[in-house]
C-alpha cells in the first residue's frame, strides 16, 4: 500500500515539475511548504524563517540529536543542506562533494558527486576552502565549485546535466557562494577580492548553462550594465562613467568588488539584490577615488542584468568592509505606510534599511555600539555628503598614511558581521543577527600586483574592544528604528547563520560548536548542545514523517578559523602583547559533521 502511495506521490511531483512555466512557480510552491527547505536561503527573500512550530519555546529544551552524517571533509563547513521531498542534498568544502541522502532510510546515500578539481585552486582561496551551498530547480541540483565550475546535476541520479566554467583560478578567481535560481536563470558570483579579480554577477540559462548576462562591479557602463540616466543612487541618476570616473587610470581593471555573498529576489519587481566586496588592494593610497561600485548594494533586473539602483555604503574603502552580506527582503509598515524593504547588516557595522523598489535610504544605524570608524551615515537629503559615512579621521587608514599603524579601529576587517546570514521573524518583526565584536590595528603599505597572487597590502592585528572580553554578540534588531532590542554576549564571534521559526524560537551556532536555541522575544537561552566541531554553517529546519528536524553543519574553519584559532592578544598600545584571549583551538578541532535534532519520538 505504502509503495503505491509513494509511486503516486512521486508521479504527482513529476507532473508538477513538468507543469511549471518557470522555475519560479516551482520554487515559489516549494518555499511555501515549510516541511521542505528548498533554497539555501530558505526563500527568495533570504529571511531564513520557517513556519514550522512543532518545536517551540515550551519544548525546545527537550530536543536531542536524532541522526548525524559525516561529510568526510575536514575544512570549514559553511552553508546548509537542502531538503526537497524525502531527500536531503548536502555539500562539502573542497573537494565540494555533494551527497543525496534518503530521509526514509536514516540518511542512506542515494548518490554522491565527487568533482575532480585541480588542488592548485586551494591557495587562491583567501579564507579557507569553504562553499556556501546548493540550489535546486527543475529537477536539477546546482553547485558552484571552488574552481569556478558551475554544474547542474540530475537530482535523481547525480549525473552531470551541464557544466560551465565561469572564471580563471590562475588569475585568482574562485567559487564559494551558493548559486541561486531566479525565474529561468542560475545567478552566480565570483570570489577573488584579495587577488585583484574584477568581479561580476552573472546569469546562466537554467536548462542549458549558456551564459545570458554578466554585470561587472566596476568598469565602463557597458561592463557594469549601469545606465547613466535610468540607474539611480539615492534617487538621483548616476550619470555617465559613474564607475571609471572614480578610479585612477586602469586600476579598475584589477578592481575587486567580489560577489561571493548571498543573493535575494523579488519576483514582482523582477529584481535580484546583492552586494559587492572590497576594492583591491587593501592599501587605499594605491587606488584614489570612491572606487565605485565596490562596497555597494545592487538591484539588477533578473532578465537583463540592467542595474535599476545602486548604493555605495563604504566609498573608498580603507578597512576591507566587503558589502556582500545578505539583503533581506521584508514587507513592513513604517510610519503607518506599507513599505517594501531591504535590510542589510554590513561588514562596516551599519544596519541599513532601504526601500527595495527604488533604493531610498530609510535607516542606517550601528548594530554594535563599538563601531567607531564613522560617526554616522549622513541622512540629511540636502547635504553634499548625503548617504555617505562620516569618517573619523583618526580611524582613516588613508588619512594616517602608508606605513603608519592606525590603531583601535572597530570593527576589524572581518566586520561587525561577515557572510553568516541573519534571520527575520514576521511574528516579532525582528532580525536575529550573528555578530563579531572585534577591533583592529591596520597598517597599509605599498604592494605590487601579480596575476594569481594575493594583492593585499596591509598588516592586520585584531583584538576585542578595549575593556571587553567577549568577541561576539547574538542580537535582535528592529530594522524600522535601527535599534538593538536585546543582545546575548558570546565568548567568540558568532559565525553561524541564524534560523527563526514560528515556534517562537531562534537558533544559531557558536564557534566552540554549540547549537543554541533562544527565545525570539527575549533572547533567553533555552537549549544548547555541543556538536563535534566549531560551527560556521547555517541552521535550517524541515519536517519528515511528522517530526520537525533542525540541522546544522559543524566543521570549524573559514575566516574565523584563521583569525581566532590561536586566540587574539590585547591591544599592543606600545607595550607589546600582554596576554591572550581565549583561543578557539582550546575548544574545538577540525570536523565535518551534520547533526540533526528533533524532539524525542513519541
Amino acid at each position: 500500500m505504502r509503495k503505491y502511495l509513494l509511486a503516486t506521490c512521486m508521479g504527482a511531483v513529476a507532473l508538477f515539475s513538468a507543469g511549471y512555466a518557470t522555475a519560479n512557480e516551482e520554487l515559489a510552491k516549494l518555499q511555501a511548504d515549510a516541511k521542505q527547505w528548498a533554497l539555501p536561503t530558505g526563500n527568495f527573500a533570504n529571511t531564513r524563517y520557517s513556519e514550522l512550530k512543532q518545536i517551540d519555546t515550551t519544548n525546545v529544551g527537550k530536543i536531542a540529536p536524532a541522526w548525524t552524517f559525516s561529510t568526510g571533509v575536514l575544512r570549514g563547513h559553511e552553508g546548509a543542506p537542502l531538503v526537497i521531498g524525502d531527500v536531503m542534498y548536502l555539500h562539502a568544502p573542497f573537494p565540494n562533494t555533494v551527497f543525496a541522502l534518503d530521509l526514509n532510510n536514516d540518511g542512506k546515500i542515494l548518490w554522491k558527486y565527487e568533482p575532480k578539481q585541480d588542488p592548485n585552486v586551494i591557495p587562491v582561496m583567501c579564507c579557507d576552502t569553504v562553499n556556501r551551498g546548493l540550489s535546486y530547480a527543475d529537477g536539477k541540483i546546482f553547485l558552484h565549485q571552488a574552481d569556478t565550475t558551475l554544474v547542474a546535476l540530475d537530482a535523481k541520479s547525480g549525473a552531470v546535466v551541464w557544466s560551465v566554467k565561469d572564471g580563471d583560478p590562475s588569475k585568482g578567481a574562485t567559487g564559494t557562494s551558493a548559486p541561486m535560481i531566479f525565474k529561468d536563470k542560475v545567478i552566480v558570483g565570483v570570489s577573488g577580492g584579495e587577488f585583484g579579480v574584477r568581479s561580476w554577477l552573472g546569469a546562466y540559462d537554467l536548462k542549458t548553462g549558456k551564459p545570458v548576462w554578466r554585470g561587472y562591479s566596476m568598469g565602463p557602463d557597458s561592463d557594469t550594465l549601469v545606465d547613466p540616466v535610468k540607474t539611480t543612487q539615492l534617487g538621483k541618476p548616476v550619470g555617465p562613467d559613474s564607475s571609471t570616473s572614480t578610479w585612477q587610470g586602469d586600476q579598475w581593471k584589477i578592481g575587486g568588488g567580489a560577489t561571493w555573498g548571498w543573493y535575494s529576489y523579488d519576483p514582482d519587481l523582477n529584481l535580484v539584490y546583492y552586494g559587492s566586496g572590497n576594492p583591491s588592494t587593501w592599501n587605499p593610497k594605491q587606488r584614489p577615488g570612491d572606487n565605485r561600485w565596490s562596497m555597494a548594494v545592487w538591484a539588477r533586473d533578473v532578465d537583463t542584468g540592467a542595474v535599476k539602483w545602486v548604493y555605495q555604503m563604504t566609498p573608498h574603502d580603507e578597512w576591507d568592509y566587503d558589502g556582500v552580506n545578505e539583503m533581506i527582503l521584508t514587507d513592513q509598515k513604517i510610519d503607518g505606510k506599507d513599505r517594501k524593504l531591504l535590510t542589510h547588516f554590513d561588514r562596516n557595522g551599519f544596519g541599513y534599511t532601504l526601500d527595495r523598489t527604488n533604493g531610498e535610504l530609510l535607516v542606517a544605524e550601528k548594530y554594535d555600539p563599538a563601531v567607531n570608524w564613522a560617526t554616522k551615515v549622513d541622512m540629511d537629503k540636502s547635504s553634499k555628503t548625503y548617504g555617505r559615512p562620516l569618517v573619523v579621521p583618526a580611524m582613516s587608514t588613508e588619512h594616517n598614511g602608508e606605513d603608519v599603524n592606525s590603531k583601535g579601529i572597530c570593527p576589524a576587517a572581518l566586520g561587525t558581521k561577515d557572510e553568516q546570514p541573519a534571520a527575520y521573524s514576521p511574528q516579532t518583526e525582528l532580525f536575529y543577527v550573528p555578530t563579531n565584536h572585534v577591533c583592529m590595528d591596520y597598517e597599509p603599505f605599498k604592494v605590487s600586483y601579480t596575476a594569481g597572487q594575493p594583492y593585499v597590502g596591509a598588516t592586520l592585528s585584531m583584538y576585542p574592544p578595549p575593556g571587553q572580553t567577549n568577541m561576539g554578540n547574538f542580537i535582535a534588531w528592529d530594522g524600522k528604528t535601527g535599534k538593538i532590542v536585546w543582545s546575548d554576549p558570546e565568548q567568540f564571534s558568532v559565525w553561524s547563520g541564524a534560523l527563526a521559526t514560528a515556534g517562537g524560537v531562534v537558533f544559531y551556532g557558536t564557534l566552540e560548536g554549540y547549537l543554541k536555541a533562544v527565545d525570539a522575544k527575549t533572547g533567553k537561552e533555552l537549549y544548547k548542545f555541543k556538536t563535534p566541531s566549531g560551527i560556521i554553517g547555517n541552521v535550517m529546519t524541515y519536517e519528515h514523517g511528522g517530526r520537525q528536524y533542525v540541522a546544522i553543519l559543524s566543521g570549524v574553519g573559514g575566516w574565523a578559523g584563521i583569525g581566532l584559532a590561536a586566540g587574539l592578544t590585547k591591544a599592543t598600545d606600545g607595550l607589546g602583547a600582554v596576554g591572550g584571549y581565549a583561543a578557539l583551538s582550546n575548544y574545538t578541532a577540525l570536523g565535518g559533521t551534520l547533526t540533526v535534532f528533533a524532539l524525542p519520538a513519541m
Partner: protein
Amino acid sequence: MTMIKSAIVLGVALAFVPFVGLHAEPPGDPAAVKNDDGKYRDKNGDPTYKVSPDGTVDWYVYSGFRRYHSECHVCHGPDGEGSTYAPALKNSLKTIGYAEFYGIVVSGKQDLSAGNEKVMPAFAENKNVMCYLDDIYVYLRARSNEAIPRGRPAKHEDKPGTFDAAQDKCMGG
C-alpha cells in the same frame, strides 16, 4: 604558464641543498655574530635576529612582522600561531632551517590527504613576499625561540640607510 615554470626553476635551484638530505636541517644557534648594516647573521651565515634586553628588536624583525601579517597571516594566522588548517610557523621554524624555509616559500607545498587537502602557493613571482623574505624569516625565527612575544614589536631599531634603496630596487619602484 611562464610564471609557474620560472617558479619551478627557481625553486629547484634554491631548494636543492635541503632536498638533497631527506631530513630537516635544524636552524642552529640563533646568536648574531655579524652585523651587515642592520642585517644580522648567525655563525652559519644565515639571517638571524637581534633583540635587546629591553625588548627592542632589529629593523628586519619589525619589517618581517609587518610583511608576515600582510602576506602569511591569511593562512598561517596571527603571530605565526597557526590557523585551523595551516601550521604554526613559530613551531615549524624550530626544526627547519633557512634554506628549507626559503625553498618552501619559493616553490610552494602540497599536502593532499583526502578531505583535508592543504596547498601553499609558490611565491617566487610575488615581490611582496620575495623582497621581504629574509625579514619574514628572522621575525619567525625570533618567534620560534620565544625571543619576542606575540603582537607588534613595541620598539625597534632605526631603519638602516640601505633599506629604502634596496626595497625600491627589488619592488621595481
